[in-house]
């Protein structure tokens, strides 16, 4: 009988001890154990295609070619020459790898018969960076687009005058055509530049 009582006390003590251990561990885990839960957030960046083009100039962008009448009978009419109006072509281009762009020029309006308008874009200067376009030299302008600059990748020329490609114009006369069809009249044309994919 006594033995049983002792056993019961021993068992109770054992359970009390276990209880104490549980409570201590409980507090320990609450107060001391590390937490290192984490969470993640996805940040995505999408750099889109960009194709921006502008003409920059000091003053105005008009160019005039005026023919000079001959003072000596029988000599030819002087009409032509070269004009640089300090017009700068600026662009920003973002395209995909291996994709290229170009700048085309198109004449809008009627060019007098026998008159040839040419344009030349110099290579880019200034603060630009990246895969800037290369000049195609002097090209003849018409009502169809002519490639003025090609090989443009992802780049920017810098903005404002004295950044980008300087444009210069030339006027030439096809004498045969000119004397056959020309009239004494004022002709005004626009030259439109387009930054487009080079397919």
């Amino acid at each position, binding site marked *: 009988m006594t033995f049983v009582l002792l056993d019961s006390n021993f068992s109770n003590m054992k359970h009390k001890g276990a209880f104490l251990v549980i409570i201590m561990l409980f507090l320990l885990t609450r107060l001391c154990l590390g937490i290192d839960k984490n969470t993640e957030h996805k940040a995505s960046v999408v*750099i889109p295609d960009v194709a921006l083009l502008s003409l920059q100039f000091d003053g105005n962008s008009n160019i005039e070619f005026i023919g000079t009448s001959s003072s000596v009978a029988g000599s030819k009419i002087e009409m032509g020459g070269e004009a640089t109006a300090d017009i700068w072509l600026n662009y*920003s281009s973002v395209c995909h*790898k291996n994709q290229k762009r170009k700048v085309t020029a198109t004449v809008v309006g009627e060019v007098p018969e026998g008159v040839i308008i040419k344009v030349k874009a110099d290579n880019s200067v200034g603060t630009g960076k990246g895969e800037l376009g290369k000049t195609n030299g002097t090209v003849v302008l018409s009502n169809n687009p002519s490639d003025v600059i090609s090989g443009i990748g992802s*780049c920017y020329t810098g903005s404002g005058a004295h950044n980008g490609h300087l444009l210069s114009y030339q006027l030439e006369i096809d004498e045969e055509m000119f004397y056959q069809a020309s009239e004494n009249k004022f002709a005004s044309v626009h030259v439109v530049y387009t930054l487009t994919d080079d397919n």
Partner: protein
Amino acid sequence: MKVTSVLVFLLLGLLASAQQMEVRVDGAVSFDGATFAVTEAGEDFAFGVESESSLWISIDTNDYWDKKVNPNRKWWVEVVREDLTWNDDVRLEIVRTGDGYGQKNNHKVYDGTTYQYIGENSWYFFRGRGIIYDIPIQLRLSGLSVTQGAQDFETNVILTIYDD
């Protein structure tokens, strides 16, 4: 034997339930064409681009005992970047722009109020105590240039909370 089994079971339960505090991020951040546009032909992207304040961090616990017994629990948060596809020229930075709110007045947040670089190694971000909800954070991108070309890239920003 029985008692030992029960003890082991309880211990495991306690260990598991000790890992209750958690950090949670709500909101979304995406930097796209609307965020960084070229304003004028010939120009590059703006130097740095900030995200809208649409990310919030909450420090929480779903453990009843944690809330009752240990409401002033101190913690700190670290941040690291895990790239999926990334451009190394681009810097991603993070800042805490507010304190959030807690259910009791004993919550506090410290540090993290200036932009810091998120690198590929885990780095201390901010610390505090108690349960706090909706701590606003912002991300900033810099080093972007049009010369990098059109591309998409993404990274996981991982925030880890540690017991102080």
